[in-house]
C-alpha cells in the first residue's frame, strides 16, 4: 500500500521546530535524513499494532493519526490524536516493552521512521534531546492524570464539549472554519469513553443549542466561549 515518493529531509522539515529534534545541529540532522525511511499510509491503514515489539520511532510528516486501545465489541478507546510534527511509539521504544496501543491513519499520511538503534544512539549523544524527550513524557503523564480524573468525575456532556475543543486545538480549522478532522461519531464516542448513540445525542444537543454546526463529519464551532464553559475549561 506504499507509494513511491522522495523522502523528506530532516534539515529542511518545518515540523522540526518545537519537536524533540529541534536542538540537533545540521550534521546530526543530515545523518538522520540519510538513515531514516518515510512511508505513505492510506486512511484507515494501521501504522503499528498494540502488543507488537517496537523497532523504531515514527515521526508524522503529514496527516492525522489516532492512537487507540482495542476494546470489546468495537468500543476502542482513543488515547491520543497525533498531527504533523508529532512523534509516535517513543514509550515502547524507550521502555523496551510492547506497544500499549495501536495507531491508524485518520487521513492519508506520510510518516518518517527512525530505527531504534539510531534513536537510542542520538539520546546518548545529545543530552538536550534527552531532556526534550523527558519533557514530552512529563506532558503525557500530566494529560493521562487529567484524563483519568475527568473520566471519573466529568459527565458525558462536559467530556464531549472538552473533546470538541481539544480536537480543534490539535488539528485546527480549514478554510471554511470547520474543524480540520474527519472523525466519525464512533471515533468521538471512543475519545470520551461512551457509546456511539450517546455521542450522537450530545452532538445533536450542541447543534440544537447552536454551540456547533454539523454537516456530515464536518463540525464547526459557533460559540467557542459557551462550549468552553460547557467543558468547564477556561477561555
Amino acid at each position, binding site marked *: 500500500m506504499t507509494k513511491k515518493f522522495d523522502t523528506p529531509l530532516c534539515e529542511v522539515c518545518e515540523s522540526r521546530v518545537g519537536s524533540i529534534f529541534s536542538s540537533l545541529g545540521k550534521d546530526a540532522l543530515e545523518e538522520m535524513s540519510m538513515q531514516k525511511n518515510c512511508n505513505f499510509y492510506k486512511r484507515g491503514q494501521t501504522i503499528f499494532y498494540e502488543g507488537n515489539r517496537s523497532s523504531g520511532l515514527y515521526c508524522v510528516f503529514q496527516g492525522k493519526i489516532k492512537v487507540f*486501545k482495542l*476494546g*470489546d465489541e468495537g*468500543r476502542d*478507546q482513543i*488515547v491520543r490524536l497525533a498531527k504533523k510534527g508529532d512523534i509516535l511509539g517513543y*514509550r515502547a521504544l*524507550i*521502555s523496551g*516493552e510492547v506497544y*500499549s*496501543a495501536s495507531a491508524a491513519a485518520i487521513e492519508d499520511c506520510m510518516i518518517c521512521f527512525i530505527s531504534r538503534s539510531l534513536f537510542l544512539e542520538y*539520546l*546518548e549523544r545529545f*543530552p538536550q534531546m*534527552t*531532556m526534550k*524527550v*523527558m*519533557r514530552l*513524557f*512529563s*506532558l*503525557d*503523564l*500530566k494529560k*493521562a*492524570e*487529567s*484524563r*483519568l*480524573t*475527568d*473520566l*471519573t*468525575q*466529568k459527565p458525558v456532556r*462536559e467530556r464531549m464539549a472538552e473533546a470538541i475543543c481539544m480536537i480543534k486545538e490539535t488539528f485546527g480549522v480549514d478554510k471554511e472554519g470547520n474543524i480540520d478532522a474527519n472523525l466519525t461519531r464512533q471515533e468521538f464516542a471512543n475519545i470520551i*469513553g461512551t457509546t456511539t448513540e450517546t455521542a450522537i445525542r450530545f452532538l445533536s444537543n450542541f447543534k440544537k443549542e447552536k454551540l456547533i454546526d454539523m454537516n456530515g463529519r464536518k463540525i464547526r464551532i459557533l460559540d467557542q466561549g459557551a462550549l468552553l464553559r460547557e467543558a*468547564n475549561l477556561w477561555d
Partner: protein
Amino acid sequence: MIVLQKVSSSKFLTIIDMKKASMFPQCDHCPVFRETLFRNCPANVVEDNIKEKAYYTVPRGKLLFMEGEIACGVYCISSGFFKLRKKGEKGRIHTFDLAKAGSLLGTHGIMSRDSRFSVTAVALKNSHVCFLPKVSFLRLIHKFPDFSFQMMDHLCSQIKYMENRTENIYKMSHEQRFAGTLYLLAKRLGWKEQDILDFNLPKKDLAELSGVGEKTISRIIGKIRENGKFRNMAKETGILDWDWFRFCCL
C-alpha cells in the same frame, strides 16, 4: 543545608508543617536506596551530586506539595506512605495513586515546561522525605545517561499505569474497579501478613481510588464481605477469595 523556598513562602506555611529531623540520612546508608531510581548510580556519587539535599518529617494528613505549586525539586520517600490526588471539576478530589518508601515524587513537575506540580501529595502516616533541589537533580540527569534512561523508563511506566487505570474505569464494573483498587493497595503498599494488606484506607479514599461514589463503595464492601470474598475490619483489610480477586484484576 538549603532551606526550602516554598516553606519560607507565607502562602504555603499553613500547608506544610514539616520538621527537620535530628538525623540527616546519607544515601549510602539509606535502607530503601536499592528501591529508588538512583539504584544504578553509586550512592556516594549521588550524595556528592546532591549536596543541597534536605530531610523532612511530614506528619500524617499534611501536604508534601500541592497541585499548581512551583516545583523546586523532587522528593524521595525515605519512609511512610503518600496518596497522590488531583482536584477535578467543582473542587472534587480524585485520589489516583499511592506511593511508598523508595518512590520519587514530583519528577514530572520539574521536567514540565511550566515547572509546576500537577498533583497533590498527602502523607497517609508520619513519613520522612529527602528533598532534592531541581538544579542538582537535573545535573544528575545530565551527568549520568544511565540515570536519564532510568528516569524515562520510570515516566513511561507511570504513563502506562495511568492509561491502564483509565481503561479499567472505562470498561470495568464497579466491583471490578474495587478489586483493582485492592490490587493497587497490595502492589504499592505491600502485605502485612498473608492475605492481609499492610495498610487500611478509609472508604472515602477507596471510593476516590476506584472512581465510584462513597455510598457505592459501602454497598460493594457489604456485598462482597457477605459473600466471604473479602474481610474489612477496623484496622485491617484482607482478601479471602483469591479466585474472585484474580478474576476481577488479572
